[in-house]
């Protein structure tokens, strides 16, 4: 099995005590360092992850998967020893066995971001939403809500900017920002398991779906009129708050 010493795995987790340890152990078997960012869980997620060998960051208040992912990226990039950063969900949907596939696709395509996508997992409503956003954004990505992504250092430096700090979800907002900054994103089809416990944080009720849709539409509109450019400042500026 190939070992990836220069890869940091970032796992945002909220009340995922049942699955987090297994994912951490599997990811660590690839030689990667694993950072679990506990989004202020009410259960023992942090302890479980720690005992499985992950370094755990606990957010002082619940602030969403994207904020947790950013916290992990900031912590990992400060270590200075990683070239690649992979985000994964802690609910068991993403299999660490796909890490080599993401790495190989990244090196063979020279892309800055590789998205592990599984279009088949969506319900009809979700697919209609994806198609609508696909039409509105013209982003050449079919599974926009996948949390299984590989970023290189350049992409992470862009995602650690004040522009990105206001996103609430880790899907469309960051992808649009990356496109504005001329970052190359590609998609790799993978298989995803269904959730082993609980339900999606975004798609758990009509109210949260509506909030998600409204916020995403606003980001799409903001992207239309946003200034694009190559430079977003350095992550050290972000860290100097």
């Amino acid at each position: 099995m190939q070992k990836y010493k220069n890869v940091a795995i970032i796992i945002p987790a909220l009340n995922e005590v049942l699955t987090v340890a297994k994912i951490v152990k599997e990811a660590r078997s690839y030689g990667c360092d694993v950072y679990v960012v506990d989004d202020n869980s009410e259960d023992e997620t942090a302890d479980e992850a720690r005992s499985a060998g992950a370094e755990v960051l606990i957010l002082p208040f619940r602030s969403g998967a994207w904020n947790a992912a950013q916290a992990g990226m900031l912590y990992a990039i400060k270590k200075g020893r990683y070239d690649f950063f992979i985000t994964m969900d802690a609910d068991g949907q993403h299999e660490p066995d796909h890490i080599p596939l993401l790495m190989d696709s990244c090196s063979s395509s020279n892309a800055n971001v590789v998205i592990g996508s599984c279009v088949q997992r969506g319900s009809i409503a979700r697919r209609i939403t994806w198609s609508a956003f696909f039409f509105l954004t013209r982003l050449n990505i079919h599974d926009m809500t996948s949390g299984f992504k590989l970023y290189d250092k350049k992409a992470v430096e862009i995602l650690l900017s004040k522009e990105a700090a206001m996103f609430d979800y880790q899907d469309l907002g960051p992808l649009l920002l990356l496109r504005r900054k001329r970052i190359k994103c590609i998609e790799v089809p993978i298989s995803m398991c269904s959730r082993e416990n609980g339900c999606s944080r975004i798609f758990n009720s009509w109210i949260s779906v509506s909030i998600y849709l409204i916020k995403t539409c606003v980001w799409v509109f903001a992207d239309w009129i946003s200034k694009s450019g190559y430079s977003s400042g350095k992550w050290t500026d972000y860290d100097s708050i």
Partner: protein
Amino acid sequence: MTLFDLTAPAISFFSVLMILLLVRRQRLGIFHTVWWLFAVFSMLSIGFFPSLVDWIGQLLGIHYPPVLPIILALCFLFIKVLTMDIERTQQEIKIRILAQKMAAYEAELHKLKTESSTEQ
């Protein structure tokens, strides 16, 4: 002079008193103080000298001068709310980044503590 003529000066007078009290108790930041002092002194001048509005209105060619203070007040309130929202967004960004940094420092502390306890 009727009772109604005293309404506007009375309202403006009490507004001035309230703002000065808040400034005296240091409840407002320096730029907020400047903004509110300007607002209340404008209210005070219009409250005590309503003819000022007619004079400025005629000067600007406004057909119905009493509408001028209302339009100006709305404009100032619009600017105020907009700047408040911008400020709030900046503060929220800072709070989010601070939360991320705090989580990182706690993780670092935890690591140091475990390392020192295993060394002992």
